[in-house]
């Protein structure tokens, strides 16, 4: 029991992250992911694709003045992280990311070959 507790406390930075809230929408051209990352400036946001895993890793930049003594906190960990598995019809090389007012908008387009096509029926 004691050894377990020690393992958990040795690396608190890596284990304690906020799971950001997301909306995931799919249309014919691809997937749009919206994630709430309040307090994250553009330079503290990292989006990685490794294999088929898309990882969003972001840090909250402190805006606090000197001598601030926290009284009450609902956001207690200054880090967001969340990972998603991409499916094979998505094109990870063409991901577009846009961060505005703490909302990240990720656009993952589908491969050209995976887009739905309408097949015209020929009447002879």
């Amino acid at each position: 029991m004691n050894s377990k507790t020690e393992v958990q406390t040795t690396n608190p930075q890596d284990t304690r992250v906020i799971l950001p809230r997301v909306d995931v929408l799919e249309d014919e051209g691809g997937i749009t992911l919206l994630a709430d990352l309040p307090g994250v400036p553009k330079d503290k946001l990292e989006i990685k694709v490794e294999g088929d895993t898309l990882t969003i890793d972001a840090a909250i930049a402190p805006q606090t003045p000197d001598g601030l003594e926290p009284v009450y906190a609902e956001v207690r960990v200054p880090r967001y992280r969340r990972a998603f598995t991409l499916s094979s019809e998505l094109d990870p090389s063409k991901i577009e990311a846009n961060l505005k007012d703490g909302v990240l908008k990720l656009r993952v387009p589908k491969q050209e070959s995976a887009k739905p096509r309408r097949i015209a029926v020929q009447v002879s």
Partner: protein
Amino acid sequence: MFESMLNFPGSVFGDFDRLRREIDDIFGTAGLPSSIRSVAPGSFPAINIGNTPNSVEIYAFAPGIDPAKVNVTIDRGVLTIAGERPSTLPGDDARVSVYGRERVSGAFNRAVSLPDDVDASQAHCSYRDGVLCISVARREATQPKRIAVQ
């Protein structure tokens, strides 16, 4: 030696107690008095509050809102943040499948009790990276002063 069953090493009760303490630690409810206006965790926007010697700083984590449409009012020591967050989800007719809808939309309203020594006329508010920062100054008379010895 063991005053309570919770203190037996390795006992089931002790394990549950440790689990409860860890959950309390994660959700931050351990021992701290909570405000009478506090709400369940996960409400929008999340609020952090800090004190400095000459001001009270309130941070509201409200991403994706129009700062011009947020109402921040101070009335008899209660700071209220109210507004509306537009939904980004498409209408029913759009040919879009929605897989996740965790983000909050619609009207929101949160209230915070301020300490007695703040000066409501000297408050300012800014919005950056989705965080609404409200700074309310403390009254001059209550700020710590250094008295020079003659």
